[in-house]
């Protein structure tokens, strides 16, 4: 099992969610986060003049998948979240030791 953490553009959440659902990956945790990478910050307007905000709004998707789904999930997210510009975000893949479904007590891949 792997956990896939993808930090993406907020407007790409819906296309990514749909495409993952088509693969049969329905469960996920989503959070609104702020971050920065090569895109750096953004310049906004004050009453007169400007100021700089160093972090931009992004969405983080966390999804745990079984080994055989990892490659497909990553390629799907990459395809659906990409614009080709700076600021598209990043995907991190983390090994998962175990998973437990709270309602039934199922463990391991059955719980994912």
């Amino acid at each position, binding site marked *: 099992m792997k956990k896939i953490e993808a930090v993406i553009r907020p407007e790409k959440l819906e296309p990514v969610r749909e495409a993952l659902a088509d693969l049969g990956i329905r469960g996920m945790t989503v959070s609104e986060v702020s971050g920065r990478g090569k895109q750096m910050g953004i310049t906004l307007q*004050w*009453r007169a*003049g400007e100021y700089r905000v160093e972090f931009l709004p992004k969405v983080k998707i966390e999804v745990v998948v079984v080994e055989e789904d990892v490659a497909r999930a990553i390629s799907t997210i990459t395809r659906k979240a990409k614009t080709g510009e700076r600021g598209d975000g990043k995907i991190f893949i983390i090994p998962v030791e175990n998973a437990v479904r709270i309602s039934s007590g199922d463990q391991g891949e059955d719980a994912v």
Partner: protein
Amino acid sequence: MIDTGDTAWLLISAALVLLMTPGLALFYGGMVRQKNVLSTFMMSFALLGIIGVLWLLYGYSLSFGPDVGGVIGDFKFAGLMNVGQEPSDTYATTVPHLAFMVFQCMFAIITVALWSGGIVERMKFSSFLLLAILWFTFIYCPIAHWVWGSGGWLATWGILDFAGGLVVHVNAGMSALALAFLVGRRKGFKEGEPMEPHNIPMVVLGMGLLWFGWFGFNAGSALTSGGLAASAFVATFASGAAGGVTWMLLAWRDRRPSALGVATGAIAGLAAVTPAAGFVHPIVGVLIGIGASVIGYYCILWRTKRSIDESLDVWAVHGMGGIWGTLMAGVFASAAIYGGTDGLIWGGADVFLKQLAGVVVIGAYAFGGTWVLGKLVQLMMGIRVPADEEVVGLDISQHGERAYGGILP
């Protein structure tokens, strides 16, 4: 002789002006960072109580009591002695004296709250309250007496200030500037740390309430409910509208038509028309609004470039707007609108020069006097919160609250 129409209008106007202080809290509160919104609110709301009570106890008497030497009122009206249901024989003689007194009370409250915009996010609350009381007593009440009190030296001299361009806006604006210098910049301001407005819809809503209340402020200052009130009402509307659209266009030219820009421009126009509202033809309000926004916009750019942290631009918007409007009253005042006074364009050059002198006198007294009072408070009890409390935010460090809860519920 009491006129019921006048009385009804003045009582409603008093309530409208009261609503401006909560409006100001929203207007200012939205512009500060999330960690300081309650502290900014408190700098308006606490004054509703404190200045309100002090006004009844002695403020009204110092401002509008029988004149002593042209500089201050005596204590004849202290604790509302001799202020009753019958009209005053001097002020607003068609309404109960109490109605005039309470209408003026609302002006005192919001004027003190106004200058808090210069020192938000860093001034210690206890010091703020002490300074507010001193400032009310030694700056607001004397100036109100000079300009509006019967026998006040500037009133006798013929200075025009319909609803408080000098007493409220120049006064608060110059005081805010003095305090910004005295209290110093917010931590990180000069280093370019973002001081992001945390809730612009709150700012715009506050502007809406201020604008609504401003009709009581300016049209109420006619002290009657006839044609003069209507004239001041329309002039006020014209200036707010022209100010808002002008600021929007300036921002658009430089970048984008921002909501914060429209809100700021409307307030600049409303502040500027205040001294002139009942003296000039209502259409002049458009010119006053346009000028106020152009002046305010460039004053903000200038003070930002100079790293002056007069944080919410009380000086640029109210102070400079008030100066502009006071001078425009001297240019466009018309005897046809308000009996007896013709401005520069009708040949009244002396009226214009008196307005100019009024601006200098009130501006200097407010700036200098406020600096001295602020220094006194600083020496007695300090004026800033400690650096670590400033970082945490004044909501938690000064008030033990936070505006927006974190993890549910």
